[in-house]
């Protein structure tokens, strides 16, 4: 493989991961505020279908993407309303929406099956695209991929570098403490769930108008990405940068599966494509095992030095969720 094809392949990985990046960023924002949006798998499908339909009918890619965001925001609003206002289980409502939105997308999308529609063209950025290596890798992408790069940076800066972002961290961690510092906890939970939902909704058109252009119903192969994105959010430890890294890692593994296919002829290609999924579980295990009770007990029984070593190792891998994730807030 020449350097050029390798670079183009990697650039393809970055583009192919863009939808997942949006999804994990959206979920990260929502969970940072304390709300699990489990509807993600359905939301992505419905917004992929809706975004494609709108873009097809209006011939406007921008409107297609906006429609996807609107769909995501509305679904998230249902999750927020049911869990924050009606005190119902976030998991139950999110799960039902995941299935309902999926079926709704197949139902409403049938007229658009296999219809050729608009798709994003790549948009090399002048000058920057001529930079050796980085130019090919980063600056010969389509618009939505550039936006995905920006979104990672924006989310990271928002959470870790701005005043409202600091408060967001606080709301997810200890709502009562955020409340005495002036936060309207439940309102903010609504806001971040809906914004997070809009980002998740961007993932749909990023598929159907970008990397997997068109709408193909059940055979689109989009079913399942939402569940993957949920796992990547945990892997990302609720940090946008680490979550995006997880999304790229996942994309890279899938790409490697394709590249290695000619080499590993005895392994069926269909298997290589799903190979990243088992790896996701393994990473989940590594990330979570530090939270298990027996680990703490075992650590406590170890001699001082071994204990310190393992504790350090676990802390580096571990991701602890925002302490109030899924817990309703009521002042007194």
């Amino acid at each position, binding site marked *: 493989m020449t350097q050029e094809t390798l670079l183009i392949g990697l650039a393809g990985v970055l583009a192919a991961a863009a939808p997942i990046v949006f999804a994990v960023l959206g979920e990260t924002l929502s969970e940072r505020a304390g709300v699990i949006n489990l509807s993600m798998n359905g939301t992505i499908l419905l917004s992929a279908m809706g975004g494609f339909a709108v873009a097809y009918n209006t011939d406007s890619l921008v409107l297609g993407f906006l429609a996807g965001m609107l769909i995501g925001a509305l679904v998230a609003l249902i999750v927020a309303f049911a869990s924050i206002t009606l005190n119902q289980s976030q998991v139950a409502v999110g799960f039902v929406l995941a299935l309902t939105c999926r079926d709704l997308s197949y139902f409403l999308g049938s007229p658009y099956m296999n219809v050729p529609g608009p798709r994003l063209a790549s948009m090399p950025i002048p000058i920057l695209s001529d930079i050796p290596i980085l130019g090919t890798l980063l600056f010969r992408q389509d618009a939505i991929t550039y936006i995905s790069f920006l979104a990672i940076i924006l989310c990271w800066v928002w959470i870790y570098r701005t*005043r409202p972002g*600091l408060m967001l*961290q606080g709301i997810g*961690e*200890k709502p009562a403490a*955020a409340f*005495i510092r*002036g936060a309207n906890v439940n309102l903010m939970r609504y806001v971040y769930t809906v914004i997070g939902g809009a980002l998740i909704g961007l993932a749909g058109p990023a598929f159907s108008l970008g990397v997997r252009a068109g709408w193909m119903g059940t055979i689109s192969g989009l079913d399942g990405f939402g569940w993957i994105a949920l796992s990547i959010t945990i892997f990302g430890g609720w940090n946008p940068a680490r979550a995006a890294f997880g999304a790229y890692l996942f994309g890279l593994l899938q790409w490697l599966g394709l590249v290695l296919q000619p080499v590993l002829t005895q392994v069926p290609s269909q298997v290589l494509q799903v190979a990243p999924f088992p790896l996701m579980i393994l990473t989940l295990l590594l990330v979570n095992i530090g939270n298990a009770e027996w680990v703490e007990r075992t650590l406590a029984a170890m001699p001082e030095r071994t204990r310190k070593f393992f504790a350090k190792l676990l802390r580096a891998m571990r991701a*602890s969720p925002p302490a109030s994730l899924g817990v309703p807030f009521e*002042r007194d």
Partner: protein
Amino acid sequence: MHVELKNINKHFGKVHANKNINLTIPSGSIQGILGENGAGKSTLMKVLSGFIQADPGSEILLDGKPVKMNSPADAIQYGIGMLHQDPLDFPPMKVLDNFLLGIPGSFFPNRKEATQDFILLTQEYGFLLDPENYVDALTVGERQQLEIMRLIFLGVRLFILDEPTTGISASQKEKLFSTLKKFPEQAMTVIFVSHKLEDVESLCDRVAVLRAGELVGEVNPPYQTKKFVEMMFGKEVTLGDKQPTKIGDTVLAMNNVALEDARLKIKDINFEIHAGEVVGLAGMEGSGQDLFMRACAGLVRPVGGKIQLKGQDLSGKSYHTYKHAGVSFLPAARLEEALVPGLTLTDHFILAEQPKGIFIDKPAGEKLAEERIKSFNIRGTPLSNVESLSGGNQQRAELALLQDPLDLILLEHPTRGLDIESVIYIWNKLKERCKQNTSIIFISSDLEEILQYSDRVLVFFNGKISNPLDANKTNVKELGQLIGGKGWADEEGSHA
């Protein structure tokens, strides 16, 4: 800041937590608020700090002007800040982020400037806090200092401190007090809420005492400990006749046991309880008695020493081993730890029988439930869900769940929140158990209950345990002083 509280009333449902409280706190003074658990201190402070709203008709005047506060953020606007007993901060975040959070300012906080502000402030007050450290690596005392810095930076002029000396070291306490004593010079007012007599005496210009939701009086220096105890716990009552207990064999023995949790360390516990004996544990909440009791139940693993039940070594064994060996634990949080909401009384009785076999004998279960409901005078039916019962009936149900025979019953606040009839009933039932050689250890914040029903009393203070006191020879005054941290000179170590 001059603070006036006028006719403060607060109801929680039927509970009247604050009754018509009137209190004036002059600017630049340190006001102490003293009272036992449940006296209404926290409610009053939550009202003053905007966390909750008092009933209509209550008035708060700051520097003569009436104010209305709907949230803690409003209170901060008026210059009122509160230091909560469990620090309301964000442990996984950095000190600097904790400091910045909630402080208004530019969209992108200037971290460099904030670091400088923070360091200057800590230097001014002589605290040593690294802004880049994580809060979960700090001690409770340091977290408190961080909160003080934050509140000062926000321009707070009335400081409310809720039990600030719990869980901090002696030197941190000294530092805290010297800091607070400087506040009046800057016209800042301090409200110091505590149950620790010594702290209140050494710090406060004036002390208001609350009992059962009412302001019972205000005291100016020089203080008399005796007076405080009397005001806090009420007049001493003459106790009914107690029957002398026949002391039997040793049931539970602790040898050099050491216990630890995040806040407290208790060392060298040596303690024995005998068959048929009742031991009361006194002390303010979080002084170590809960840790002690959970160790007796096998829920907390001792970090050192030996626990034996009737000669059998149980140290390090699981709760279920203790349970099978004849130890029963009734936690205070009835619906959280003791009972299963959603299951009926019959379900509970069936579960508690530790059943063998496969199929539930429903008629037998209901018959059992009916018997127990009758003999324990529970107001409910065999098919009532436990959460639909009143607190007193839940407590009776907990007792009715106890196996027979048992060696040791451990009770956390067995009669808290119950009417007098239930209290007497429950203790009669417990005393019957004692006659069958069961021993009892119980925690209570009601000193009269402790004196009335215990044979011996252990007092806990900050992880220290007193020598066992003969309940017939001690009194409310002595216990009150020990609970408040006085008279411990000859009690060094914890050879209970």
